[in-house]
Every structure is written in C-alpha cells, then in structure tokens.
C-alpha cells in the first residue's frame, strides 16, 4: 500500500482531500433514501447501477451454476427438462440485458465519464435518473416474468417457438423492451456530453481512450436498440392479437424474426465489448505508466467497430435458410470487423514495451482480458468461415466463443475497471493480496469451464441440451468443476471489495499515479460537483514521462 501512496504524491496532483475546508464527498453530501432515489448526481447513479449489475450478475451466475450442475450427468441430475430450459433462458436473458450491457457504460461510465471531461455532470442529469428508473422497471418486469410462469425460449426468442409456447414470454419481452430505453437514454446522454462538455484544451484526440470507447458504444446503443424494441413489439402483437408476422401458421416468416433480432443483437455484442475495451486502454496506460501505443488507431478502431457491427448480423444465420449469397456477403464483412479488434489488442501489448509494468489486481484482469479475449476473437474466425460454421453452428463451440469474448473480455474488463476505480468511487483501498488471488482463481476457473467447451462443440455436442450422449460426460464434468472454481473466485473477488468498504484503509486521491482528470483533479471520493473549478486538459491523453 505504501508504494502506491508514495506514487500518488509524485507529479502535479490536485487531490483535494486536505484543502478547501471540509466539503463533504458525494456520498456524504446528502442523506436518506430519497436523496438516492431522486439523485441526479452521475456518481450516485453509477454506484446504484453497479450495485444492481453486481446483484444480477450473482443471480445470473447462480442460474449458470444450476445449469452446469444439471449437466454433470448425461441424463437427469437435479431438475426436469422444462426447468432446465427455463434456467438457461434466465441465465442468458439476465446476463445480456441486466448485466453486461449496462455494466461498463451505465455503471463505470456514468461515474467516470464526466470526471474525465472535467465536467460537473452529464449533459442531461435528469434524463440520467430516468435511465436508471427505466432500468429498475425493466428489471422488476423481467424478474416477474421469471417468477410467474417462467420463460423457456432461450434469450434469443426465436419464432415460432416463442410465439406459441406457454409461459411469461410477453412479460419478459416487454421487460427487454423497457430496458432498451434505459440503454438509449444513456447513449444519448453520453454522446451529447462528449460533444459539448469537454474541458478547455481537450480536443477529440486529447480525450482518454476510455471516452472514445464509450462514445462509440453510445452510437450503437442509440441506433440499434430501437430495432430490437420494434421487433419485440411485433412479437408481442403476434402472441396477443395473432397478427401473422413470424409464425407460418398465421402466414408469417420465422426467418424474418431472426433478421430483425440479430440486426440489433449483433451490434449489441459490440455494445458489450467496446466499453470493456475502453476500460482496457486506461488500465494498460496506468499500470505500465505509458502512453497507449497507436492512440489514433485505437480511437478509430472503436468507431470502425461501431460502423461495421451493423452489417454482419447474418453470420448468426448461415444455416437458417437465408440465401447462399446473403451468407457469403455476411461472411466477408464479418472478417472485416475482426481487424479493428485485433488492432486494439496489438496496440495494448505494444504499450507494455519498455513500460513500468506492475501487477495490481486491475492489471491482472487486464492481462486476463488480453489472453482470454484473444482466444475468443481467434475462435470467431472458425465461425465466420462459412463451411466450418456449418459444422460448428449451434454447438458448444459457439457457447465457448461468446463466453470467451463476453466474459473473458467484457466481464474481466469490468472487474478490472471496478478495482481500478474503486478507490475513486468509495474512497477506500481494497486488500491487494486477496484481490490478486481472486483474479487468478477467476482466470483458472474460467479456462477450465470454457476451454473444455470448444472440444465439446467441435465434437458435435449441440447447445441448449438437457440430456446428451453419454460419451460427452467427462468433458461436461470438467467444465462444471471449472464453473464451481470460477464462482468461488468471483465470490472472493466481490468479497474483497465488500470487505474494503468495512475495513479498507482510506484511499489517496491518485493511488495509481494515473494521468487522467478523474485521478489528477478530484478527491477520493470526489465532492458532489466533482471539481472546484473546471480543469484544463492535460497536454496529452496519458501524459507520462520517462
């Protein structure tokens, strides 16, 4: 701990934890439940989002543990088929809509973005509050759907199964519809904030890369989410008033649903990964004490990913019955989107060259990201290749691929960011050793759980299978064991943070010696209005010296 506090006093920090009287920090500035429910402070909203996201991560994770427990044996283990189908649906729906999509933007982004811009708050603080209320409403609706009747369609709601099966499909789909608006409002808010509230001297290319990533994410959120909203509305109409859009029994086309759904849901996966990449840039800079290599390339790659993400959705549908020509076009475009992602990873590794590399918990998560996201990204090549995808589509290979990018990527970055900004958010330091042990447990558990699934998939094991052929049992047992180990690591990780709230030492203004405005110009935690006066942007985005 003493090493980092020493580093914090180097340089020109303006941490105001000692001067300017006793202005309380944002956590102390007002009291009572109403001061939280009706807050327009981006920092309090960020904290509430983080609490909600962590809670639902735990719930979604429990669902996953139950799914993996059932899969310990190749026939019934602890539940019947219908229950299993509901659990894998719950796991997917909660993780996608209630956890990963809001985690970095609404959780960390809300807290950090205005601070990195030297601003008092986002452009529309009340809209931000509305965003959170809408999220809560959607969450309550989703939980009701799960508890009353359940949903067994998978998080993808493919028709006509979803337009004809019993269960609370309408409520769940309506919940996702509502949650979409939370996403849209946050995206709008961030776009305007970045355009209009940058401090003096902060041109676009002087912004921290975290902001480039959040900005690109926001563009996708605003443009793609409405398509999902309309699609879900159409699905509700089909179920309730039997308008034939997707169900062939009513004259509809089931593949049309897939086009509509994936038109949003493919960009959605970039809504999930771009913020994780945004956090990565800032973490790598801080824990190598170096400017991020290839700044402009990393910045533009975020925009490139945002744009290309809209034209590849058909790679989820190579064997759906769409024309071979469509499949060919989508395959070609899918390879393009891999390039900017690769560019980022190469630039982060290059940043480490001749840096001063330390291994605090956030950096362990960042290194995990580099390892795991690389595997996830590389396995995407198999899936983007048409003939190979015919064999691998809808098998565990796909499940492994997306867990490597979404969990090995985004969630690792989210945890890294949580640890990285924890001193700023809470004013406490966490206990480093357990944080590091937990990060290593998570890394090991993750690989045990999911690398195994590549083998399952390439050998022909389909997804969403309650029973399975006996000869796959050994690999499933290994994957389940890994899942328990992973869960233990995650518990230790969250436990380390919770423990710090109770017993952690007071954090200095800039424990990492980082160079972005939230570290150099605010207290830990910040005062309610963040800054006493608007700071001037640093000369360069990560202004380290040698």
């Amino acid at each position, binding site marked *: 701990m003493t090493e980092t506090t020493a580093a914090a006093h180097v340089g020109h920090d303006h941490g105001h934890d000692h001067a300017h009287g006793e202005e309380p920090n944002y956590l102390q500035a007002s009291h009572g439940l109403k001061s939280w429910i009706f807050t327009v402070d981006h920092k309090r909203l960020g904290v509430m989002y983080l609490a909600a996201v962590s809670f639902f991560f735990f719930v979604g994770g429990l669902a996953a543990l139950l799914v993996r427990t059932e899969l310990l044996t190749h026939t019934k283990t602890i539940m019947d088929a219908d229950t299993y189908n509901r659990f894998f649906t719950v796991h997917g729906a909660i993780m996608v809509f209630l956890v990963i999509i809001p985690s970095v933007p609404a959780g960390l982004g809300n807290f950090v973005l205005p601070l990195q811009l030297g601003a008092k708050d986002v452009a529309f603080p009340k809209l931000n509050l509305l965003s959170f209320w809408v999220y809560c409403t959607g969450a309550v609706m989703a939980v009701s759907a799960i508890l009353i009747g359940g949903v067994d369609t998978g998080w993808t709601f493919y028709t006509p199964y979803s337009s004809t099966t019993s269960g609370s499909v309408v409520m769940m789909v309506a919940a996702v519809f509502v949650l979409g608006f939370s996403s849209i409002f946050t995206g709008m808010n961030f776009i305007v904030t970045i355009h209009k509230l940058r401090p003096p001297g902060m041109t676009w290319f002087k912004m921290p890369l975290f902001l480039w990533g959040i900005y690109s994410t926001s563009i996708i959120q605003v443009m793609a989410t409405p398509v999902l909203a309309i699609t879900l509305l159409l699905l509700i109409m089909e179920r309730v008033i039997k308008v034939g859009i997707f169900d062939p029994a009513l004259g509809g086309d089931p593949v049309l649903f897939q086009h509509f759904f994936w038109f949003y849901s493919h960009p959605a996966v970039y809504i999930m990964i771009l913020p994780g990449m945004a956090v990565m840039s800032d973490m790598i800079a801080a824990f190598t004490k170096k400017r991020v290599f290839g700044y402009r390339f990393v910045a533009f790659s975020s925009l490139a990913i945002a744009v290309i993400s809209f034209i590849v959705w058909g790679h989820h549908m190579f064997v759906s019955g769409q024309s071979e020509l469509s499949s060919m076009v989508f395959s070609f475009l899918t390879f393009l989107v891999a390039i900017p992602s690769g560019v980022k990873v190469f630039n982060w*590794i290059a940043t480490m060259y001749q840096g001063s590399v*330390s291994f605090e918990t956030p950096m362990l998560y960042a290194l995990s990201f580099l390892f795991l996201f690389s595997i996830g990204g590389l396995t995407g090549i198999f899936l983007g*290749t048409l003939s190979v995808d015919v064999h691998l589509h809808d098998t565990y290979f796909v499940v492994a691929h997306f867990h490597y990018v979404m969990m090995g990527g985004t969630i690792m970055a989210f945890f890294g960011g949580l640890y990285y900004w924890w001193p700023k958010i809470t004013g406490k330091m966490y206990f480093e050793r357990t944080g590091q042990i937990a990060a290593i447990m998570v890394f090991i558990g993750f690989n045990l759980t999911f690398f195994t699934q590549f083998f399952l998939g390439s050998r022909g094991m*389909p997804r969403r299978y309650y029973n399975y052929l006996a000869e796959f049992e050994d690999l499933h047992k290994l994957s389940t064991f890994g899942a328990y180990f992973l869960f233990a690591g995650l518990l230790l990780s969250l436990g380390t943070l919770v423990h710090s709230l109770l017993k952690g030492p007071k954090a200095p203004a800039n424990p990492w010696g980082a160079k972005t405005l939230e570290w150099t110009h605010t207290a830990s935690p910040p005062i309610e209005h963040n800054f006493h006066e608007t700071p001037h942007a640093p000369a360069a985005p990560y202004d380290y010296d040698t």
Partner: protein
Amino acid sequence: MDAEQLKQLQSMHLPLDGVWLPKATSTIAHVVDDPFWIIYWACVIAFVLMMAPMFWFAWKYRRKSAEQKALSQIDHSQAMEIAWSVLPLVFFFWVFVLGFRGFLEMFVAPAGATEVQVQGQKWQWSMAYDHKGDRVSVGGVGAEFVFPKNKKFKLVLKSTDVLHSFYVPNFRIKTDVIPGRYTTLWFEATEAGEYPLLCTEYCGTDHSNMLGKIKIVDTEAEWHAWLDKMNTTVVDVPTGKNLFETKGCTACHSVDGSTGLAGPTFKGLWGRNEQTNKGPITVDADYITESILQPQAKLVNGYQPVMPTYQGQLKQDQINAIIEYIKTLK
C-alpha cells in the same frame, strides 16, 4: 419414454477422429475439415505471437520500485499498424474464399442425387423414401434411417411446427428445418456405420431427445431390403406398442391410468364413452384414426388442442396396429 429407453437413446455412439473432430464419413467433410485445420494452426501461431511478447514484456519490464517510470514513451509505429492490419486481412480473405467455395459445394446438390423427404417435429425425425412406387415413411424418437454408402442423396426438409435443425456431425451437414418452407441438404456417405442425427435448434422440452441414427450400409441391396421391411407393417400388438412408444405418443398419453398429462390415458380407452366439444362419442377404430390424423376434429372436454397430426407419417396399417395395442390396455 422410460428410463431404460432414454439410456438406450443417449448411449448412441458418435465416432471421433482425434481430439477435436468427429470421424469424417462423407465426401463433403473435407471442405469443413481442411479450413478447420488451416485456421487452427494459424490461430495457434497468432496466439503465441501475441502472448509471448505480452508475457515477455510483463517480465522484462516489471516494476521494481514504486517510482520507476517507463523506459521510453514510444507510442506509435505506422509500419507496425499497417503490417498487423494488412497481413491478417490477407489471411482472412484466403480463408473466406475457402469457406465460401466449400459452402457452395455443401449446399448445391449434385445432379442425379436421390431425393428423400425429411420432416422434423416436436420431438422426432421422420423420413420418406420413394421406393417401388410407394412412399416409405420411417420415423420416431431415436429412429434408424438407412442409406447405402457411395450414393448421393438430397434431403428435402420441413418442419410441421417450430424451428428444428438437422445435424449429422460425422457428415458435417447441418441445416435449419423450418415450418412453412423447405430447406435442402445433400450428402454421400463413405463408410458403413452408425452416425448420430441431432436436432440442433432449440425446440422445447425434449429438444435434447430429438435424435436419430443414420445407419450406412455397404450395398444398395441391403438398403432396399430394409426399405421393403419398412414398407410392410405387421398389424399386431407388438408393432402397435412399438409405434406408440417411438412416435412420441407417450409424451402425452399414459397406459396405466395416470392423469395430468396433456392427453387422456389410454388405459381402458377402447370402447370408452367420452364427451367431446362436438358431442358424445364412443372410442372406436374410426375415432382413433381420426384423432391421429386430425387431432383437433373432436376434442375431449378438459383437454387443450395441442396434439400434433400424424398425417403423412403413419399409414393406415400402422394406425391399425396401434388400435390393436390400445385394445389390450384394459
């Protein structure tokens, strides 16, 4: 399906070839496997090329004291940016071409392939072969479908209810099976053996039991012999019982009097008086036949209209065998 049948079904063997892939037993498998291995080795090399520097830099430049700064602030190299954008792009283009050419081969059936109709429904596969002027229909949970090796077949697939997907890992073939539309696949098997057929588009409760067995025989003669056998249905109680157990009926109808399932129990069914939504009926051969082919025609009161039709899947002599079985359930 009872526990014993389930165990039987799920102990089907899927032959493997090495650690990663199933044994390839069709002529088209190479358009999957060749690019698979190219991509595999490229990924291994790429991963090492990325992780080796990462671990090396982490070690070599590890911070040894709190104030230690970076050795340099080198932060750009246009040459590297171009190299690591263009070189992957070239590789991707090559792999893309391999993939799409293989894909076209996989989905454009060669001329002269023999057509077989395939139907997917919750939760079984059935196929209809044209044989000696007849349409021979075979199907059921875990049903065996025989084909000779070294002969090209074109499958024409449809669903009667929701999306399914027809997947034979050993042949490397897969297509979604859609209600209201046809999709097609073709294959030519290279080796005799038994290869699992798996539904791989989630379709509800028994999605993971929706399996079949593709049995490849050495000669067309063996195949014809099997077709002849399938074409004649013995109308007797054991045949009826087998059909009852493999055509999905047990999902909704008990034989021991248990209620609470989606359909009425068959215990004591023969000759029973029932109240239906079209008035009272007595269960006879006509009613049973009608219920199998047009399940919603007369719905017993208290039950939902959820029974799927077996039109096109069960011939009258198969229905007669089922009736013989039902007569024994007192």
